């Protein structure tokens, strides 16, 4: 019914005699709208209420702020080395008594040393914000002709090392996605490859220098979230704010970067009764992407996730920490004008970047209104 109305709208627009350009704009917008609708309807049905109800059952139980112990991590990564702790590390508030959103830095060696070894652990002073970076660099000789050693670790060994290190950093195990038994790609591991050559394909040196693990945070949804009607696959995880990258070689973890793994809890004011209808979401997404310049949908992906949001205006202190925010059900829309495989491009057929956007599945509890 909805699609028929849209088709009617296109026809009406064309018959009303607008300029060709206007008709093309209307046309491209309706094509975009149809592409979004085709993905959204199987996912949500008539509305987001059912999904939101399921997501209300997600109970983040780990909390990086409870698991992260800087003294333990520092001892593990720096060992006996005398590490310098930045003098402002003990403060979690700014001079104006606001939560300090900066980082505590602990390091060994000089960051500015041109060739010297260096290691650093930096983490949110309010650790509930969920940002932790560990890195180390070895000393090196800029005139060395010795090639780097290839990494011998298998993907599984690298992944196991990464998980062990993430546990040390306090990343809750329950928030790390687990591959189903029938997964074709169970490990999120790739080799970082370097090469040097004089002519393409001749005398080429290719060395895998690290194994890199990269994945997004995920929560288990009790009872499952969604069953794909075509494949029958049941999705029982939901994406959440937070991403990790860990680079490992035969000497251990060289870089670990935990980003935005905040202690945000589900929005306590979440009300499934306020879930948006599917037509409402289709309009919202279409209008927003169109305003962002998106016209073609060579590749379109719509995923259910949780996004970090600010608490309701009347509830300024979310459950675990003052700067953690809250989690709200959302759609993560990823769109690009071209699809998979190599495509021809030119000045006239340039390639525009893809766009990633998030849209709340539930409307605001109440409209904000000025108190003054």
């Amino acid at each position, binding site marked *: 019914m909805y699609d028929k109305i849209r088709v009617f709208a296109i026809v009406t627009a064309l018959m009303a005699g607008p300029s060709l350009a206007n008709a093309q704009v209307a046309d491209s917008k309706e094509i975009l709208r149809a592409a979004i609708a085709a993905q959204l309807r*199987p996912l949500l049905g008539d509305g987001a209420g059912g999904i939101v109800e399921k997501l209300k059952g997600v109970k983040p139980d780990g909390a990086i702020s409870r698991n992260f112990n800087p003294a333990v991590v520092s001892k593990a990564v720096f060992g006996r080395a005398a590490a310098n702790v930045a003098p402002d590390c003990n403060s979690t508030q700014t001079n104006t008594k606001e939560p300090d*959103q*900066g*980082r505590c830095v602990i390091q060994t060696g000089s*960051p*500015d040393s*041109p*060739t010297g070894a260096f290691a650093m652990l930096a983490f949110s002073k309010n650790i509930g*914000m969920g940002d932790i970076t560990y*890195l180390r*660099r070895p000393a090196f000789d*800029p005139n*060395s002709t010795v090639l780097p050693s290839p990494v011998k670790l298998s993907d599984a060994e690298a992944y196991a090392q990464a998980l062990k290190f993430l546990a040390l950093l306090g990343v809750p195990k329950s928030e790390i*996605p687990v591959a189903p038994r029938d997964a074709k*790609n*169970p490990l*999120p591991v790739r080799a*970082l*490859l*370097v*090469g*040097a050559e004089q002519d*393409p394909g001749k005398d080429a*040196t290719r060395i895998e220098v690290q194994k890199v693990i*990269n994945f*997004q945070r*995920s929560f288990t949804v009790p009872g499952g979230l969604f069953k*794909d009607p075509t494949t029958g*696959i049941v999705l029982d995880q939901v994406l959440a704010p937070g991403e990790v990258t860990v*680079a490992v070689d035969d000497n251990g973890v060289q*870089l670990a*970067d935990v*980003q*935005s793994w905040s202690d945000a809890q589900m929005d306590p004011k979440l009300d499934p009764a306020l879930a948006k209808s599917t037509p409402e979401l289709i309009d919202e997404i279409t209008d927003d992407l169109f305003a*962002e*310049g998106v*016209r*073609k949908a*060579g*590749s379109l*992906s719509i*995923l259910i996730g949780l996004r970090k*949001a*600010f608490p309701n205006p009347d509830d300024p202190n979310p459950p675990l920490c003052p700067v953690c925010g809250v989690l709200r059900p959302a759609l993560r829309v990823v769109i*690009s004008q071209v*699809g998979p495989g*190599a*495509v*021809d*491009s*030119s*000045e006239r057929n*340039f*390639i*525009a*970047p*893809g766009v*990633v*956007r*998030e849209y709340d599945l539930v409307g605001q509890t109440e409209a904000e209104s000025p108190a003054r």
Partner: protein
Amino acid sequence: MKARRSKIKVGWRVVMGVALAAMLSSAHALKVDMYAIGNWSAGNCAPGDTDSNRPSWPGMAQAWYDIMGAMGETRTGKFIDGNMTVRRFCDPSSKAGCQDFSWVDWPDAAIVAAHGYDAGNGWGALMRNSDLGTCSLVMGAGASGSTFVGDNNLKFLHASSCLSLNDNYFSNMRVAMKKPGSSKGLHEMTGFHGVMFISSSFNGNYANTAFLGHFIAVSRAWTSQHYKSNQFSCAAYDPHNYYGTCQDQCPTAMTVGATGSAALNRLLNERYNNTAAFGSPGGRSYYAWMGYRGCDPVAQDAFNP
């Protein structure tokens, strides 16, 4: 709400950077520029083409630019939209009127954000306005390339642009990174194999590139921060690519050198704050590159140089 979140996200990183900058020596301070186009429709290279506009793009470049400043570098030029033409990016040896020595080749480090394309095994980037008979910056791509950088000041060039450093460009790019007859050259270029993505939530990756590039090699900072494994094109039932439906964002980096080991050593160890340890590339007979084996982006085959 989205804008507010983004500002706060970048804001705390600025705070972080300011704190860390205090630990870094100011002796190395680099001059830093940013060149970003978010609106093409009001220019004359894609007039009225609102399809091509990407208003959130300059913010990503600025996240890098701002943190470079917070880390103690000197912000010397923020250029967004306006009269962005090839004149700012092409070398006078290629065409009269080119003035890269006053623009992109004037600072020590720069980021360029613009639509990209494969200009013939080299990077093409769509300008906002036509100038000198073209709407494109072309780097590498054999005889059609007019961008040669590093012969003046530029050491690090970051291309926030689709298809800016595909795996089929590396050989051609080396000429653009060390102009024939010049004693100086570009130390490192970074870009993307295939399509890159825009999101306010990715601003932190640009900021972190600036941050981490002062502690580990710029190549590793770029490739670790912009590597997005299996986050795009996923089927709704497959958000982690367990069933193989997803695609990647694939960052790449490259250097040149008189020998393979020289190019590799630079690639693996040069940071924003140790450029003097390496100096200018001694030649361009060899090139070295970095990327993720099998990284599978939109619009290109998997990374396999």
